[in-house]
């Protein structure tokens, strides 16, 4: 287990160092906007805001409500594309 967590740490470091993590973030954001996920989630946010009140809503409120829904609503195609890219990175950097 220890070896794996160290491996994971070194992979994460490589992701950041090569700039791939930022590229992946941008890619994911673009795809999520494109497929309408962002608009969907914004609508969800509106619900939370109406519930908690415009003046009193906190980041925590939003995070707690939105994150689980957000994860569930990511389309499979987007997940597939990202996974392909990640796997390619992993095999490419098999040191």
């Amino acid at each position: 287990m220890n070896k794996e967590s160290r491996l994971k740490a070194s992979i994460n470091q490589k992701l950041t160092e090569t700039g791939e993590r930022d590229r992946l973030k941008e890619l994911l954001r673009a795809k999520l906007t494109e497929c309408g996920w962002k608009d969907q989630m914004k609508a969800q946010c509106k619900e939370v805001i109406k519930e908690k009140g415009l003046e009193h809503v906190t980041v925590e409120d939003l995070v707690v409500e939105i994150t689980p829904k957000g994860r569930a609503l990511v389309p499979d195609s987007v997940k597939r594309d990202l996974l392909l890219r990640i796997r390619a990175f992993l095999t490419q950097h098999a040191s």
Partner: protein
Amino acid sequence: MKMEELSVSSLDNSKLEALAQDILSDLVEDACLGLCFEVHRAVKQGYFFLDDTDQESMRDFEIVDQPGLDVFGQVYNQWKNKECVCPNCSRSIAASRFAPHLEKCLGMGRNSSRIANRRIVTGNNTNNKSESDQEDNDDVNDNDWSYGAEKKGDVIFLHLLNSHKGVRCLKTKPD
């Protein structure tokens, strides 16, 4: 002492997949958090609901879907049958043909100089009453091929003939 192998290739497929899923999970979470912060800031700064309009305005500007009208509700082919009088030649022209007619009539626009040039050249060839001097006409006639060959095929054919002059014909070889 053996160095422990720390490479991705040492992982089997299922573990590789799990690692990829973990990374994806992190990225998705990051995107969600980013959205939350974005929305929260928009709420506190007061611009979150800015793109919503009230119901009444929404109804006023709703998309029109009737035959003969465009999406704004305007009639779009009402100028089809109208006629306009050209200020240059005082002819009555159909509205949809008006702009191209003006281009040629006024001598402005992209093609009018080309058309005028063509007309000058073919004009010189067909009617010999010259607007230019006699000398100029003689010069024109002295050349290898006539300047009146305006058709593209003619120009290309004559050019080929000219360039063929120096080449031996391969078909008829001397014995």
